[in-house]
């Protein structure tokens, strides 16, 4: 197990102990059951997300990814990353594996930051929900005042993540 696995395991055990202290075995069990219920519901999505990542890697040549989304792609990479992020459906168990697949295929960290940022801020699939619960006016305001975030984060991300390699791929190659 690597450092990230240990860290996550430690936090999970800590939360389980906290749940036990607050509500005994019943709450400790209900937390685990709640997580596993989400996993069961999302299992097929997770499988498809990884398959899409793998197929993407064999279909699109690394040189094309490097040219369009790589570290030297600059603004173009950020723009494409944002478009892809805004249009990706599904939860974190879908888009984070896809972000990792993009990195493995040769995308630059600015592009990855732009992709993640557009998914969390400009999520197109979330618009109907936002409209339903917040109403058109508040939804429009929310979009207007956060519109700048993905491009800003993508361009700044290019700088603050220079040289960063995700631990999942740090062992060698991408």
């Amino acid at each position: 197990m690597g450092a990230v696995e240990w860290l996550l395991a430690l936090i999970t055990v800590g939360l389980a102990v906290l749940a036990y202290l607050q509500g005994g075995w019943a709450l400790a069990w209900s937390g685990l059951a709640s997580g596993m219920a989400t996993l069961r519901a999302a299992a097929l999505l997770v499988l498809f997300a990884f398959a899409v990542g793998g197929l993407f890697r064999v279909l699109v040549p690394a040189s094309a990814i490097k040219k369009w989304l790589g570290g030297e792609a600059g603004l173009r990479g950020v723009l494409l990353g944002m478009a892809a992020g805004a249009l990706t459906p599904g939860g974190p168990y879908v888009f984070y594996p896809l972000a990792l697949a993009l990195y493995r295929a040769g995308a630059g960290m600015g592009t990855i930051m732009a992709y993640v940022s557009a998914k969390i801020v400009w999520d197109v699939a979330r618009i109907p929900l936002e409209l339903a619960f917040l109403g058109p006016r508040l939804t429009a305001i929310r979009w207007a005042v956060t519109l700048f975030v993905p491009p800003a984060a993508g361009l700044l991300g290019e700088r603050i993540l220079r040289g960063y390699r995700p631990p999942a791929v740090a062992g060698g190659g991408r």
Partner: protein
Amino acid sequence: MTAGIWVIGAAAVALTLTAWRRHRGLAGEGWLAGLASLRQQLPLLLLAFAMAGYVEVLVPRAFIERWLGAGAGLRGVLLGSVAGGTLPFGPYVILPMAAALREAGASSATLVAFTSGWMMWTTGKLAFEFATLGPGFSARRLALYAVFPPLAGLLTLLLFGS
């Protein structure tokens, strides 16, 4: 989730067909690459799901709603950002909560800060970010994102009133 699975499923089918048409073995190669990546990430994903489940049962929801409904102006913006940013729920919990907060009298600026904090600080998604892009990515992204939700609330306050 239902709509998402159709879109991702359709993308997987379309890419499989494209790969298969390009060259017979390529589709299998793509699926194998994906499955190998899944196998590698699986322990982390399992931990991430367990962690998300625990956080969900541990946070006192009613308390947050009472506490936030009372905030207004700059105080509401800051409270909204922090509350939204630390609540680890999905959109089906947070957006109805925002609607309830509006009914309880929360201002537009507070609500924008609340929803922005939730979507940008992504407490409920952090376990997945850790597991894939790594804690180093999360730390840098959060440092960069620290100012965005309060800024969104402030912009709402300045441009659209409360």
